[in-house]
């Protein structure tokens, strides 16, 4: 006891200069970077702009997701989700997936919420189905898809195709991947927040804990997306746009690299004019489920193998759906 008591202030004294040193290093690095004028390199400029714009667009959604997740944790009684969790899986899965209609937050927000729902007793498959469906099925996303494709005369077909294929993918992935919550969720390395008697304080603590937990993965994912965008010429993939199969695979690749928010991606898809409609649908369904930024977010919430397994399911399902759509609605 005595040893600990004498050590603690000593640790404290060392921690303060270390913190100051760190701040000094950061300021020195920024000053040095400004002095060399890093911004004159076009690649640095392009990276910085894309990186920052993805983070700026995504963080508010992460915050919303963290807020919803914290509200569930603090205000929804423990028994509620446990009760839903006792329903048959065949009911839970579609109910959870359709729950996305009522949750107007895109993919960055749905990941922490799904994690919270699963840890609260919802069937893991239902949690996954909700997480994958809500960024595609939510009303804002479907409306933006409708608006983007209005000029093409295929707006309702595109909305129906996106919602339908998104739902199928969410149910398939939920059914195939969500067996065991323990096997699915990554253990929190960060200490969970403490027990609180004050609910408002608990809300702030949970919100911040989730926001920071997810936020750094958004930053890392945005860095990957910006690097890929700066280094890889898109013409490498868009040159192969002609056939529906290759076109769909190419647009899934582009969706991965671009890491767009699902509330925005329809406006980009519609401008990918060299690609067949079915391939544009693949872009719209694959992107909100798997992209560079999400790969990092998933690895924050789930165990490592989750991302790989999800990709293995998403590619064939989306490809098949997009080819069918191209055959029926496309030219």
């Amino acid at each position, binding site marked *: 006891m005595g040893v600990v008591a004498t050590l603690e202030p000593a640790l404290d004294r060392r921690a303060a200069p270390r913190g100051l040193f760190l701040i000094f290093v950061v300021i020195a690095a*920024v000053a040095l*970077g400004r002095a060399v004028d890093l911004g004159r390199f076009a690649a640095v400029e*392009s990276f*910085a702009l894309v990186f920052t714009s993805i983070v700026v*667009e995504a963080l508010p959604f992460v915050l919303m997701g963290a807020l919803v997740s914290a509200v569930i944790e603090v205000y929804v009684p423990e028994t509620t989700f446990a009760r839903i969790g006792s329903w048959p899986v065949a009911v839970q899965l579609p109910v959870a997936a359709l729950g996305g209609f009522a949750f107007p937050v895109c993919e960055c927000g749905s990941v922490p919420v799904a994690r919270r729902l699963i840890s609260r007793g919802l069937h893991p498959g239902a949690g996954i189905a909700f997480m994958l469906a809500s960024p595609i099925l939510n009303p804002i996303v479907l409306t933006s898809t409708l608006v983007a494709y209005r000029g093409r005369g295929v707006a309702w077909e595109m909305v129906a195709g996106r919602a339908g294929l998104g739902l199928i993918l969410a149910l398939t992935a939920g059914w195939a991947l969500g067996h065991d919550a323990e096997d699915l969720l990554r253990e929190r390395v960060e200490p969970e927040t403490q027990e609180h008697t004050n609910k408002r304080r608990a809300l702030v603590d949970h919100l911040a804990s989730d926001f920071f937990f997810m936020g750094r993965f958004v930053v890392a994912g945005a860095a990957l997306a910006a690097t890929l965008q700066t280094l890889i010429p898109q013409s490498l993939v868009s040159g192969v746009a002609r056939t529906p199969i290759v076109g769909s695979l190419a647009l899934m690749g582009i969706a991965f690299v671009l890491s767009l928010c699902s509330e925005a991606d329809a406006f980009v898809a519609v401008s990918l004019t060299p690609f067949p409609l079915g391939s544009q649908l693949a872009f719209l369904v694959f992107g909100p489920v798997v992209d560079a930024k999400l790969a990092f977010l998933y690895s924050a919430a789930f165990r490592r193998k989750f991302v790989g397994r999800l990709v293995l399911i998403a590619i064939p399902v989306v490809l098949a759906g997009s080819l069918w759509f191209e055959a029926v609605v496309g030219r």
Partner: protein
Amino acid sequence: MIDRVLALRGSVLATWAGFFAWLWFSGERSRYLGPRTYWVVAFGAIALTVAALAHLGALRGRDRRPDRLQVLGAIVMVVPVLLVILVPRPNLGALAAARRSSGGIAAFLPAPDPNGEVSFRELHYAADSPDYAARAGISEGMPIDLTGFVTHDGGIQLTRFYVSCCAADAIPYSVRITWKGGTTKDYPDDTWLHVTGEVVKEAGGYVVYASGGIETIAAPKDPYLY
């Protein structure tokens, strides 16, 4: 007793709140986002300020110290803000335009807006489809007025990025510029120009014949078209 975990988180939240507020009030948001997502900036500034204040209000009471991972996480979270200080006012220029593509021949074109202004994207689509050109009212000799930055692809081109929601989705559209007698005075990449002239149809698509002159200008405050 001060809860240092909350203090650390609170300062990161305050940094981001300040950054969003700066984007909002300086107008710099138009560099990173399209008008469709401007609301994100206002929401971020307000929500993050509230979150930072809530942290400030809860500082006293518990004696917690952040572990190494929490400190590292906090540093990662402020990297984007540091990068903005490090590389202020970045632009997407000729290099980014070369990396991105507005694609080859269109499989499916949008309907033109008959009252809309004809600019880079409309000329690009019109090159693919005579029908689109007719409906958008694009024809040989049509007077035109374009502002963009210089890129090169064989000859000199004027380029502009079209943004939907954020700079990550920017798509470049280019138009070749010609001059009297087919020759063009050359400008270095990324020079902003204002070109007045007329539309001329050539084998590879529409080009702009700069009969009204070329003027070097400063980069516009809002670098994108939407």
